[in-house]
């Protein structure tokens, strides 16, 4: 992942202090549209104790199911995968005979923290329903880190999740990728160096929300006009900055928070996460992306992805899907349980997502149902392949597949030990490691996090449940 902005930002700061100049000059560097230096990640999980997981059945998410295999987690990374591995005296050794191990579960579509529990009037912080384009808002600024649902998601094996703004607007704002660790501030949870996301929305929601107010968009064609108009503005904005940074223009443009996010997409830094149910709308959005030369990372809630699976493969766009949700709105009417399988078999990037504080706890089970539907459709989809739908392909969607999402040496030690096959309804996540640190242990109450909210709430002397 190309990420000059952090370094550029730090360098500029140092130079500024040393030279006492502070004079704005053309940098010849690309403009920092992501703004990683605003609200920087303070994530600091450090693995101090080596972990040796012994004799597990390992689904690597690279297409392999390894039997009786050991994993060594060291310095936050998966250090070794093999048999008969050794660890030092101080290591935590776990006998995982009969247990299954997968990469940590990744949910690309969550509203934990911005639609927290309990859901009350004052906690609806996920949708900035004030304008069809709110590219200036950042979901992380709504995240209530003490949402008790983060811990529930952790007990379902979730190690990484993207918090997105809602779908009321054509451009809902920026999403943020978090590691599922307790934090006093959202910065403590931010996945280091993960790209930002831009939430976009097709279809019923934006046209209903704004059309009912008598403002644009009021139709699906109005939606598309809205996207194109905004991309025209973003192109012009980016061009101004590019000209300035190259020294072709001496007029320093004014910053515009909204256009900064869109320009970040055009620069290839920020990933488009597009709520889009219908096949035809996905096809239109892929053409909008071509018109303005950007990429859609992922269609979310892609209920009809199976109808355009070949186009998705050709355009290298991921689809984040449910296993079987349908019928709550017209654009969710044409559901087939084989959706994920058909998309996957067409060679496109297919993954599960939740959009739900209950669903996020069972993404492995949702994948099990989708795998069955694929098998019943006649596809040969074993667990070693289907596991990618809740791990590696989700990491691809978020642009972090070089760091996490599979069990490979050198990757982040984000690992779940399951009580059995993750494709069984009776299986539970027993232990969850994030960067090699045991963050959840079903058998040890001391290794089960509780948010501030959980303390003394049903039982003054205890935790919520």
């Amino acid at each position, binding site marked *: 992942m190309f990420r000059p902005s952090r370094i550029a930002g730090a360098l500029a700061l140092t130079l500024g202090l040393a030279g006492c100049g502070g004079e704005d000059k053309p940098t010849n560097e690309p403009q920092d549209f992501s703004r990683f230096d605003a609200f920087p990640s303070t994530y600091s999980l450090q693995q101090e104790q080596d972990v040796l997981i012994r004799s597990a059945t390992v689904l690597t998410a690279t297409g392999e199911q390894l039997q009786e295999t050991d994993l060594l987690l060291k310095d936050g990374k998966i250090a070794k995968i093999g048999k008969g591995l050794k660890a030092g005296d101080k290591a935590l050794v776990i006998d995982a005979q009969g247990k299954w191990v997968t990469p940590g579960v990744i949910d690309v579509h969550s509203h934990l923290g911005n639609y927290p529990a309990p859901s009350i009037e004052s906690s609806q912080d996920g949708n900035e329903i004030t304008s069809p384009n709110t590219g200036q808002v950042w979901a992380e600024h709504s995240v209530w880190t003490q949402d008790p649902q983060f811990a529930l998601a952790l007990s379902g094996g979730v190690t990484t999740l993207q918090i997105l703004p809602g779908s009321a607007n054509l451009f809902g704002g920026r999403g943020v990728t978090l590691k599922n660790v307790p934090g006093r501030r959202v910065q403590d949870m931010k996945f280091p160096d993960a790209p930002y996301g831009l939430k976009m929305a097709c279809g019923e929601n934006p046209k209903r929300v704004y059309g009912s107010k008598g403002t644009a968009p009021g139709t699906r064609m109005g939606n598309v006009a809205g996207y194109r108009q905004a991309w025209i503005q973003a192109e012009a904005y980016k061009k101004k900055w590019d000209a300035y940074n190259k020294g072709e223009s001496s007029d320093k443009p004014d910053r515009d928070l909204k256009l900064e996010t869109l320009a970040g997409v055009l620069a290839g830094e920020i990933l488009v996460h597009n709520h889009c149910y219908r096949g035809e709308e996905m096809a239109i959005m892929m053409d909008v992306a071509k018109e303005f030369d950007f990429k859609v990372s992922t269609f979310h809630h892609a209920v009809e992805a199976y109808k355009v699976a070949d186009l998705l493969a050709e355009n290298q766009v991921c689809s984040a899907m449910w296993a079987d949700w349908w019928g709550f709105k017209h654009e969710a009417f044409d559901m087939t349980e084989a959706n994920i399988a058909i998309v996957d078999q067409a060679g496109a990037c297919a993954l599960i997502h939740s959009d739900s504080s209950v669903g996020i*706890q069972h993404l492995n089970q949702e994948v099990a149902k989708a795998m069955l539907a694929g098998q019943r459709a006649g596809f040969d989809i074993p667990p070693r392949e289907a596991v990618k739908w809740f791990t590696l392909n989700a990491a691809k969607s978020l642009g972090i597949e070089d760091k996490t999402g599979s069990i490979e040496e050198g990757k982040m030690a984000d690992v779940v030990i399951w009580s059995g096959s993750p494709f069984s309804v009776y299986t539970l996540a027993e232990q969850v490691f994030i960067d090699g640190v045991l963050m959840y242990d079903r058998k040890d109450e001391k290794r089960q996090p509780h948010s501030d909210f959980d303390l003394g709430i049903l039982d003054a002397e205890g935790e919520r449940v």
Partner: protein
Amino acid sequence: MKTLNRITSILLASAIALLALVHAETMLIKGAMVHTLSPGQDKAQRLDILVEDGKIARVAQDLGNASADWTIEAKGKVVTPGIIAPLTSLGLVEIGAASGTNDAAVADITVGPSFDPVAAFNPKSTLIPFNRAGGVTTALVTPGSSDKIFTGKSFVVNLTGSFDSVESRNVAQLVYFGERGSAVAGGSRAQTLAKVRDAISEAREYAANRAAIRRGEWRDMAFSINDLEALQPVARGEVPIIAEVHRASDILAVMQLARELNLRLVISGGAEAWMVAPQIAAAGVPVIIDAIDNTPESFSQLGARSDNAALLHKAGVKVVIAGPGFLATHNAYLARQSAGIAVAHGLPHVEALRSLSTNVADVFGIDGGTVAPGKSADLVIWSGDPLELTVFAETVLIDGKQQSLVNRSTRLRDRFLKPKQGHEFGYKF
């Protein structure tokens, strides 16, 4: 050529229909592992099942010599009673956000307990074949209301999709307590309880003075005559109220009210029911839960937890597991998954199965729910453990008749498995 084909296919179709009729007479299911779910039978057994005239005629270890028009070899398969889905809007909703397809709830301030949505039931809804394919054979259909505490009459349907699929009417009255009840009653839970007390008391006053009230020679009543009539079987304790309530203290208050008024009570929701499980068990009140939902979604559900079903069962409470959250109608069959998760959190497997069928039948007086002679032959033959995610319903019988498992989901799948290219894609091959 075309005509010939058509005639052939009509003939074929008639022949199949005829065969189906013949076959419907007697059927033998051989060698399956059967969860009869009858009292005391807590383990699956290898049994044969003989079906005659839509009923289960015999259940025994070996009916090898029984004569049947049709035999299903089910060795290696698992049989359970069909799933009975509680608390659905099946046949009353097609698309949630398409108001013209919604008939489950009324915002009519003149209609309360007498609202009877059975007249709106649509057996041709696409939700019916889809849920049937998931193993649901029967469903309780309950109305809703945006501004009434009493929502109206619930009814029972089978999932054959035929025009005569309503099995029984007015089997329960869903009543909002807790947060929703408070919102409808004017802002306090206490007011909801008071209003229910007033309603029952007025219904009894009406029963004792019916003639005078109907003639208009009585004080003005708060409820319409229709509503007062509808409340009669409730007030007599014949039709249960399904009380939607989550918070432990609210559950106790509702149980107190039901005791005081001699009402038959079923609790629905019950996120914190485990906290008062002994009291619920002592009162013999069944509880319908959304077993997969362990989130503290409201301040009334702070005690939500995954082992609610297990704790309730352990205390002796009859548990019914409903479909998940807002999917409880479109995906009513997913109660299976919730039941499986409840097992992972300590509910005995057989009780999980009972929570999907037997207990629902018991609570609402529905025929079915066990595999026993005399019961309706509403049966599912599963490819394995019915609670497992990678297991599916291979055969579904309703009243002894084999049901189609084709539905829009499978039709769309089949069209797009090998989509025809270009403009040909819209034609049937």
